[in-house]
């Protein structure tokens, strides 16, 4: 599998064949809260084991206990561990082992009352408040706030004073008091689950509010419920022991952990051992509950982050060193113009440690970006465009690194540059704007603060000078009231404005190359047009070059001089934008154009749009032959061999298709009819004889 990369592509390639799907069922099914997580760490295994032993031993106590809990052995008062009394005895010579285990079930059982009342009531209130709307939520929240402000100990002592030491009832009241906190924890999650689209879909079906809460919200809360239950269980135990310690436990001859600790505390000088077995029992039980809670609460993706971790960085440094030693010294082509980016045979792959090791995500990608030009990297999600773009900045996600090839920037090979050295390149020479402008902006600081801080760091300017420069930059990106925008926080401005600010931020270091990863995808078309115009004027004014990652062929037509069409980690066609869009040579480019409703006018809008069968294959399933063959309408037997990127007949462009010339001569179009599913080829890493036969049949047809 591909490691967890922060921006999950909406349409990640998935296996299509039934066999493949069946295979993924086990790994792909959402994990329930039990199982692997619980037994994933030593602490939680030990915790579960201890609790299980404790409960089992306590419930079967009458059968095996060597002594009755009240049996007094005056020959061994306050003794340490002996053969007769394994854990010693108390001041009346009662066997500690017997008393600890006999009272365990009661202690645990009454703690569970607290858990059930607290979690049950808290969850119920949270689901009610989330489902019933703002007014109910406000009312419930106020009530829980009052509950949280009540002094719990005082209330419990008052209850004991009024009704006596009824332990189950006291634990129930404790549960009610704790439920206010649980409500707080659950409310946010319940509300976010309520806003999911599948809840909307259920409402459209006419599912009742209670039905939605039970069927769609409650299952989503289980994880939190289980974690909270484990923690509250521990709290309940401690409070119960504490009450028994101050004398509000079960009536005297009856054993209780708190009472036993209290007894031990009176003999702490003459018989210190007495404290040990009970104290250890209590501590172990509380620790067990906490360990279980921790294990269950661990988010499955807690470690996955967009930026490489320290360990990943060390790994990267190692990889860089091997590339640097393996690759020949950068071929300094005669007359490499300053400001030219030249990517040669770039490969990006998953690191050799961990899951999916060695899988290549980008293979053998080459392109050039001349100064002052815009290169488009275009293709569907899962084709490696973003990985290629991020590798230019050395910002590949953790677990992914450049495995071969060169990224030549001003004659320097960025692929073999250490992370430390990349810091002098990033922002100053090469800058990034991403799809989500808000990712570039910190919600805690004003736009002005972030801009000036960046300018001061990258350009070494003074405070006043930087502030002036920030204003200039904002004006440069077409913001009219720059002074006002400087004082705003990112959440106060619109998406289009935020993208302008993000561009200003990227321009702060006066970069020579801008890597733009889908910069307009999240914006309205009218705003997109403005941002594209802005980028175009920046290119003409500053001589900056741009690598533009996009899936929108209209954006390519608008702003790109050159375009590289990527499919399954390879460049399948590149060249001048007009020659590729007006006269595509590769079937994939043909198909993309045919599938684009923007390519048609209203009066000649077809009945059906052309489609491409199936999905982009996953990196581990890339065949050795043409990677598009399995989805291609023109595939033939020759497509099973690896296909080189060759000059396409017409101009300076390159195309990776054995049939390109034939298609051009015959003027064949990508047909809009769906190829019947039966004819669609299976995508398998090794072509099996059946699919080979199908390809041959197609070839003959």
């Amino acid at each position, binding site marked *: 599998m591909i490691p967890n990369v922060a921006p999950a592509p909406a349409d990640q390639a998935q296996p299509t064949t039934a066999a493949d*799907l069946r295979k993924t069922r086990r790994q*792909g099914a959402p994990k329930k809260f039990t199982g692997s997580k619980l037994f994933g760490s030593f602490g939680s295994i030990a915790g579960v084991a201890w609790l299980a032993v404790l409960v089992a031993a306590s419930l079967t106590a009458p059968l095996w206990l060597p002594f009755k809990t009240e049996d007094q052995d005056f020959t061994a008062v306050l003794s340490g561990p002996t053969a007769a009394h394994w854990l010693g005895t108390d001041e009346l010579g009662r066997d500690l082992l017997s008393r600890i285990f006999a009272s365990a079930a009661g202690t645990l059982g009454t703690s569970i009352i607290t858990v059930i009342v607290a979690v049950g009531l808290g969850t119920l209130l949270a689901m009610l408040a989330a489902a019933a709307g703002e007014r109910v939520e406000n009312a419930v929240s106020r009530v829980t706030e009052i509950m949280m402000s009540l002094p719990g100990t005082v209330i419990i002592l008052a209850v004991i004073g009024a009704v006596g030491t009824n332990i189950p009832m006291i634990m129930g009241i404790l549960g009610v008091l704790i439920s206010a906190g649980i409500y707080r924890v659950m409310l946010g999650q319940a509300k976010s689950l309520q806003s*999911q*689209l599948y809840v909307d879909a259920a409402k*459209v079906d006419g599912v009742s509010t209670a039905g939605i809460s039970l069927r769609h919200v409650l*299952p989503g809360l289980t994880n939190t419920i289980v974690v909270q239950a484990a923690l509250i269980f521990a709290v309940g135990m401690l409070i119960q022991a504490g009450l028994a310690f101050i004398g509000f436990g079960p009536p005297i001859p009856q054993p209780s952990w708190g009472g036993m600790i209290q007894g031990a505390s009176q003999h702490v000088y003459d018989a210190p051992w007495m404290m040990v077995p009970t104290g250890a029992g209590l501590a172990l039980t509380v620790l067990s509950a906490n360990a279980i809670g921790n294990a269950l609460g661990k988010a499955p993706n807690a470690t996955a982050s967009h930026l490489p971790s320290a360990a990943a960085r060390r790994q990267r440094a190692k990889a860089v060193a091997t590339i640097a030693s393996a690759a020949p010294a950068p071929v300094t082509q005669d007359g490499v113009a300053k400001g030219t980016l030249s990517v040669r045979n770039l490969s990006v792959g998953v690191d050799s440690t961990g899951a999916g090791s060695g899988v290549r995500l980008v293979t053998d990608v080459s392109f050039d970006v001349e100064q002052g030009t815009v290169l488009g990297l275009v293709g569907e999600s899962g084709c490696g465009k973003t990985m290629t773009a991020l590798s230019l900045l050395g910002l590949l996600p953790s677990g992914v690194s450049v495995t071969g090839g060169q990224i030549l920037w001003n004659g320097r090979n960025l692929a073999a540059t250490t992370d430390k050295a990349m810091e002098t390149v990033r922002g100053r020479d090469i800058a990034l704007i991403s799809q989500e402008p808000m990712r570039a902006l910190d919600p805690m600081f004003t736009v002005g603060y972030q801009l000036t801080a960046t300018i001061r760091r990258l350009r070494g300017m003074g405070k006043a000078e930087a502030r002036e420069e920030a204003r200039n930059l904002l004006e440069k990106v077409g913001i009219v009231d720059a002074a006002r925008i400087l004082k705003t926080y990112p959440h106060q401005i619109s998406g289009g404005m935020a993208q302008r600010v993000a561009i200003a931020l990227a321009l702060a270091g006066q970069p020579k190359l801008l890597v733009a990863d889908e910069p307009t995808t999240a914006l309205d078309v009218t705003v997109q047009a403005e941002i594209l115009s802005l980028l175009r004027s920046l290119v003409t004014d500053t001589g900056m070059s741009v690598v533009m990652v996009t899936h929108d062929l209209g954006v390519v037509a608008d702003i790109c001089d050159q375009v590289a069409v990527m499919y399954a980690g390879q460049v399948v066609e590149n060249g001048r934008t007009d020659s590729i869009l*007006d006269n595509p040579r590769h079937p994939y480019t043909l198909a993309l154009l045919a599938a684009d409703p923007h390519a048609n006018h209203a009066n000649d809008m077809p009945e059906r749009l052309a489609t*491409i069968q199936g999905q982009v294959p996953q990196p581990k399933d890339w065949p050795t032959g043409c990677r598009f063959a399995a989805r291609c309408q023109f595939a033939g037997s020759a497509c099973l061999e690896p296909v080189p990127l060759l000059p396409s007949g017409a101009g300076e462009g390159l195309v990776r298709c054995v049939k390109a010339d034939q298609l051009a001569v015959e003027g064949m179009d990508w047909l809009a009819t769906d190829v019947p599913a039966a004819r669609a080829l299976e995508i398998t890493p090794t072509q099996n004889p059946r699919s080979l036969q199908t390809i041959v049949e197609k070839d003959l047809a």
Partner: protein
Amino acid sequence: MSTAVTERRDSTPPSDATPMLEVKDLVVRYGRGRKAAAAPAAVDHVSFSIAPGETVGLVGESGSGKSTIGKAILGLQKVSGGTITYQGKDITSAGAAERRALGGELRAVFQDPNSSLNPRNTIGTSLAEPLRLRGLSAAEARAKAEDMLERVGLPRDAVDRYPSQFSGGQRQRISVARALICDPQLVVCDEAVSALDLSTQAQVLNLLADLRDERGLSYLFIAHDIAVVQFLAQRVVVLYRGQVMESGPAAAVTENPRHPFTQALVAASPVPRPAEQAARREARESLGVRTGAAAVPAPGGCPFRLRCPLATDLCATERPALRRVGTADVACHYA
């Protein structure tokens, strides 16, 4: 139930049939009390209707209120004014029980394929939910779910799998299957293909078109991309800040827009032909439409006036009514 509906549809000639859906003077305000009354409405007196078998496209920028209208029709958003009539029946404030009584005739496909299916339920459970509500047995529901999956081009045994095992395009097809499983009459598609790649977007659009032709469905197709709307819709309603700017036949509105906002919207949508796109870019820049970033107009008058190249004092004082220009209705004093 479905047969009765088909008969009714067949027996009434389309010309004088009651519209499938009629939205009249719809107003939606967010929030409560005095504050809400002072703020501009998210949906401001919007009217349109959908005939049986017709697809109406609702286009506009983010914040234009197009999704809010969809939600109001589906009963997911409280309405502040106006009426929504479904086949002659007022459903403006219908509760869950009344909606259940509609018999699943009014359904929805949402934008985000990642969150429109409950990740904890199997596809079968999700598909069966609306059927089970209508009293089908588990076995019947499962059989229907399998048939429907096959119809949208997925293997029958997908019923036992979870949403995470499907790609975005496949999940969106499952959402379509879920919407169509109880033979609806009207489907609200809220940005149903916006999150998909080109080739998968084309697959889902084709599927929607096929199902419409096959079953005589009506769609309310909400999208920001005018080219996508143009592919599927017969009529287009263009919204700006909660108000209808222009509505009319799809070809007229997209090829020969009359309202300055529609013109800006159409001109801004890029086409994948470099020479033509360069010409469009020039045409767009010559329109003189100002950037909308800081423009929040005071209530009253035309909402587009701060960006409009044609705006005069009249536009600030009087809200232009929809009037017939050519084949379309346009809300502009100067169109």
